[in-house]
């Protein structure tokens, strides 16, 4: 793999900077803080640098180059009109430190987004501050913690998570200082009410769960689970990673949840992958609203002197919730992501219900198409459904355990084979409760043609012999990476030429 530092160009340097207006002596910097040597930047010229990044970009794969069925990640197409709106100068050129009277437009967007997110999840108040789903989780459990402290219920130290949960759930709760109680799922992958009943008590702070769950199944006992947890005085937390499956059809509020995080970058369209930028607002019921991070946007009727700068009949202000846990992020969250998702939500409104329906339809269609194609190719004995179900929600799991046992072909081998067919591979080895798991989420933005072709190609990969698959991929810029070596030899240091 080529690196910037591999292009050493001519001796000297490939860039030129204007002479600084002041030199070090005029800045009265302490001597030990003044740089003695030039930084060891790569010695590239501008065209060399442009070529380097263009070279890299040609080796990239993303939703804009092909199908990306990465389960649990909701890699949907992001409408370009969102970009246009986010780039409007009145939005893009704002500095987060500008005073309220100069940013009434942005504040009104924030306010509207808070309201819209509250409505779709059946919550009462929203903060847009967290910039990732996991940060949203952490923010919410911190709010729970303050809520219980406020009520003098210091004994509530335990957070319950099902064994199929996203790893971030127990991690967020543990970071906030809670003890994690893991409960097993039933054979069909759904929550086991008896197991839950056995662990709830007056030390229960919360239960964290996603619905549909990580196997793509709707938790039909969710109302009973909420009752059990509420019955002992605990709170219910909804992990919104799978919100794409239910938006507009039902809501976490209806299921009895007290708090929810939204993965705006999944459900509401925002380019993601490669680590961000994401956005993980949280919504809470009224009893938790006073604990939300500060500030959130509130509004009142504009008075006469404000009317010239007001964008409508209201005046928008930053507001500090009464018992706020403080800030969880500098400034006001990932504003660009919030704007894009606001634009998306405003464009579709109640039609977002159709979006969820199509996401579920596509997932179920693809599941059946894969079984159909595998059967006609005679390779349907190589995998089984990860969970017994008639209907999945927006994603589904397959277990490649039969292929592993009989042919030595693992889920990882099939994933690598799919790379050779020109696809991003589905998620593998998650959730952990399914052996040799492959988790597929097509999203609503793919056509029937794409799904049919993928199903055919999936069956083709299963027909490849084990030895070839063990060596896959062979057509990608980087062949199979040595994950074991990488994990055992953590070293990110690049040796400089002296």
């Amino acid at each position, binding site marked *: 793999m080529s690196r910037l530092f591999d292009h050493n160009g001519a001796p000297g340097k490939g860039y030129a900077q204007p002479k600084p207006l002041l030199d070090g002596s005029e800045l009265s910097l302490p001597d030990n803080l003044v740089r003695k040597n030039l930084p060891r930047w790569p010695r590239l010229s501008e065209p060399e640098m442009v070529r380097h990044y263009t070279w890299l970009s040609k080796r990239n794969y993303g939703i804009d180059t092909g199908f990306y069925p990465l389960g649990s990640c909701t890699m949907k197409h992001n409408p370009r009109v969102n970009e246009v709106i986010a780039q409007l100068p009145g939005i893009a050129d704002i500095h987060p430190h500008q005073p309220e009277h100069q940013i009434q437009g942005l504040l009104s967007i924030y306010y509207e987004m808070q309201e819209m997110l509250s409505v779709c999840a059946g919550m009462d108040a929203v903060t847009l501050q967290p910039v990732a789903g996991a940060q949203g989780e952490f923010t919410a459990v911190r709010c729970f913690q303050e809520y219980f402290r406020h009520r003098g219920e210091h004994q509530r130290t335990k957070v319950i998570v099902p064994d199929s949960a996203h790893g971030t759930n127990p991690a967020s709760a543990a970071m906030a200082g809670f003890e994690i109680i893991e409960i097993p799922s039933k054979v069909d992958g759904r929550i086991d009410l008896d197991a839950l009943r056995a662990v709830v008590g007056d030390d229960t702070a919360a239960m964290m769960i996603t619905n549909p769950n990580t196997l793509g199944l709707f938790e039909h006992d969710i109302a009973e689970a909420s009752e059990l947890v509420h019955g002992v005085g605990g709170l219910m937390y909804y992990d919104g990673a799978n919100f794409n499956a239910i938006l507009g059809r039902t809501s976490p509020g209806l299921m009895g949840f007290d708090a929810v995080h939204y993965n705006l970058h999944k459900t509401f369209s925002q380019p993601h992958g490669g680590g961000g930028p994401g956005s993980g607002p949280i919504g809470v019921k009224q009893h938790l609203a006073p604990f939300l991070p500060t500030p959130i946007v509130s509004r009142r009727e504009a008075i006469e002197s404000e009317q010239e700068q007001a964008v409508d009949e209201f005046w928008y202000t930053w507001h500090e919730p009464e018992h706020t846990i403080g800030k969880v992020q500098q400034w006001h969250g990932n504003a660009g992501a919030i704007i894009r998702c606001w634009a998306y939500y405003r464009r579709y409104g109640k039609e977002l219900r159709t979006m969820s329906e199509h996401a579920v339809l596509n997932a179920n269609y693809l599941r059946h198409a894969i079984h159909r194609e595998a059967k006609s190719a005679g390779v349907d004995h190589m995998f089984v459904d990860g969970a017994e179900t008639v209907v999945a929600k927006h994603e589904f799991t397959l277990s490649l355990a039969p292929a592993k046992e009989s042919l030595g072909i693992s889920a990882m081998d099939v994933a690598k084979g799919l790379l050779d067919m020109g696809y991003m591979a589905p998620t593998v*080895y998650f959730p*952990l409760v399914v*052996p040799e798991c492959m988790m597929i989420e097509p999203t609503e933005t793919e056509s029937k043609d794409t799904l049919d072709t993928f199903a055919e190609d999936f069956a083709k990969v299963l027909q490849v012999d084990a030895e070839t698959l063990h060596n896959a991929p062979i057509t990608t810029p980087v062949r199979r990476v040595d*994950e*074991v070596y990488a*994990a*055992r030899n953590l070293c990110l240091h690049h040796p400089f030429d002296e």
Partner: protein
Amino acid sequence: MSEIPADLYYTKEHEWIRMDGDIATIGITDHAQDALTDIVYIELPEEGDVVDDMGEFAIVESVKSASPIFAPLAGELTAVNVELEDAPELMNTSPYGDGWIVQMRLSNPDAVSGLMSADDYRSMIGE
């Protein structure tokens, strides 16, 4: 078919226990290491730590997942296989030998009779 030595005790968390007087040597089974795939890291406890029955005492990380290791019975750790820190792959290559994880003095050695036999374990994992 994974290797399941007849003279060991087993748990449903896929650990094996070798008894020598009141000292139990503990590791993960061949079946477990195969399911975990390549083990890349282990977080070990300290010698002298006291663990409860089913207490979590180590974490094993593979390229696929991170899994806690539970104490099959209560006791005090008398030895920890620190070699695993530099060579976690020993749990893959020699799960019942050099890949042992800890030794502990059981508070109640008689309680091992409540653990699974090799035959019980074999039928549990469906082999």
